[in-house]
């Protein structure tokens, strides 16, 4: 039986990574990710996790060390946030294109300047196109569950791709809340040992990440794209298997009270919980409104999104990141593009808010929805509206 404990989410990540019997952790501490790697370093030092903990000198080195470890067939974990993820940037592409199944927790954090250690999705959106599978989570339980799933998905022979599990900095990383920690036997039943097909071996040398001249580069990139899209099947199968063992179910797109809703709100990450509370209140007032939660960011769940929002009149999208000088929120922009060729589709209203750790309260979400409905009627001369900014 799983154990229900009051535990900080970052510490719970350390506990569950320990249960996966990870071989190598290479990481550099950065707020708000620090407690994750701090706890893992302690578990390794105390002998509770038999892993190589490599305290590197930067995030660029952290992920580079992870690449080497994963290429040697080691189960590999790291974590970072904000500027740290940015410093890893060029190495992120190498992990995905060399098919190295690294699992990384990202405690989402805003980007400088001005210096902000607080949470938003700017870091995640900046690495959107790096070829990683990316999962967003809304509470501690989802973080722990999806860290487990991430290993299984990443290491699957039909996938072999790195996976990021996004958790909102502070809003999730630093919260003590009740979490069901799995039994070791359940983890063992769910997660087979890592069996990387072509591990580095001095006795059988291979070249990895070689030159890709013009005659082959396009084909390699196309193969990478096909593989990432195809990973959807494995992700769905993994979540199904997780449900069978742990009785908790995950989907690429999740709907909350959205049946027959004329107006839908779409969120990602921990703010979805506050949004659900706001939806409950608005439903109580007789408003016909529901919530769509986007869990799987890459591969993007086109079909699931289309069918989830098809019957609504208005779709209000909240982004916690800003595409400067562009279409506003990256999520809204992708949803627009996914729906543009559909015959039946809702009007889309885009808000950017919750930047740099600013809360959006329950009444804030109600206000956003009301303003969104107004914009859907009157139209707006702007691509998006910033939410809650002082003039």
């Amino acid at each position, binding site marked *: 039986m799983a154990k229900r404990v*009051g535990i900080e989410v970052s510490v719970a990540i350390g506990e569950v990574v320990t249960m996966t019997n990870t071989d190598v952790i290479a990481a550099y501490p950065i707020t708000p990710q620090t407690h994750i790697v701090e706890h893992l370093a302690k578990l390794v030092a105390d002998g509770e996790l038999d892993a190589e903990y490599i305290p590197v000198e930067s995030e660029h080195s952290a992920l580079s060390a992870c690449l080497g470890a994963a290429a040697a067939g080691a189960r590999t974990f790291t974590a970072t946030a904000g500027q740290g993820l940015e410093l890893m940037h060029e190495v992120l592409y190498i992990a995905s294109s060399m098919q190295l199944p690294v699992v990384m927790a990202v405690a989402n954090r805003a980007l400088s300047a001005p210096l902000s250690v607080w949470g938003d999705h700017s870091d995640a959106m900046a690495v959107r196109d790096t070829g990683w599978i990316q999962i967003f989570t809304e509470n501690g339980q989802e973080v722990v569950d999806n860290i487990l799933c991430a290993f299984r998905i990443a290491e699957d022979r039909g996938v072999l791709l790195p996976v990021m599990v996004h958790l*909102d900095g502070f*809003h999730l990383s630093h919260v*003590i*809340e009740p979490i069901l920690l799995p039994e070791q036997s359940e983890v063992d039943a769910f997660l087979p040992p890592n069996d990387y097909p072509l591990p580095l071996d001095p006795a059988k040398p291979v070249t990895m990440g070689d030159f890709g001249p013009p005659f082959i580069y396009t084909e390699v990139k196309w193969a990478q794209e096909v593989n990432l899209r195809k990973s959807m099947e494995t992700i769905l199968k993994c979540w199904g298997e997780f449900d069978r063992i742990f009785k908790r179910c995950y989907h690429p797109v999740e709907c909350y009270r959205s049946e027959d809703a004329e107006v839908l709100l779409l969120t990602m990450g*921990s703010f979805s919980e*506050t949004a659900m*509370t706001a939806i409950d209140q608005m439903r109580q007032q007789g408003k016909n409104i529901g919530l769509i939660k986007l869990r799987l960011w890459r591969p993007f769940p086109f079909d699931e999104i289309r069918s989830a929002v098809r019957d609504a009149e208005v779709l209000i999208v909240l982004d916690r990141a800003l595409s400067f000088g562009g279409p506003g929120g990256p999520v809204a922009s992708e949803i627009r593009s996914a729906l543009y060729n559909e015959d039946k589709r809702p009007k889309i209203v885009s808000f950017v808010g919750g930047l740099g750790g600013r*809360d959006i*309260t329950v009444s804030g979400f109600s206000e956003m929805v009301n303003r969104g409905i107004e914009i859907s009627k009157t139209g707006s001369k702007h691509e998006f509206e910033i939410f809650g900014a002082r003039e």
Partner: protein
Amino acid sequence: MAQAAINEGKFAQAFPSFGPERRGAPVQAFVRISNKEPIRIRAEITEPDMVVVFDPRLLHIAKVTSGLKEGGTLVINSRRPLEDIEAEFGTNWHLAIIDATTVARELLGVNIVNTTMIGALLRVTGVVKLESLLEPLKERFGHLAEKNISAMKRAYEETLVKESG
């Protein structure tokens, strides 16, 4: 507090609010506790039922009653007389005071009042049992747990309470 509540089978959520960490700077921390339902709000508490002030100097630099609900509770670490505190904060709220700095200095040997203030808080709320704190404190403080538990219990005994109205 959150871990104690969760161990009692309740739902709870505790989190800090701070900037780049440095010792001695003003910080806030929040806890929500619910007997029945999972807590589905991810935002700081702006209308608390209870406010606990760890450092009396904060009374001069922050409005500690900001958002505090009518009939709510204010727990203050202070060596001033209760009447004095009542004169300052009025009768809208339940007031509780404890000289936590002295308790912590005497029992822990340092001016760190966190566990002492939990004792004062428990005195004015039945939301978790004092016994439920023992395990989380043992886990958190290891060989220092006994001293901290003594500080909590002494604060529980010595806290002075004035009901609102």
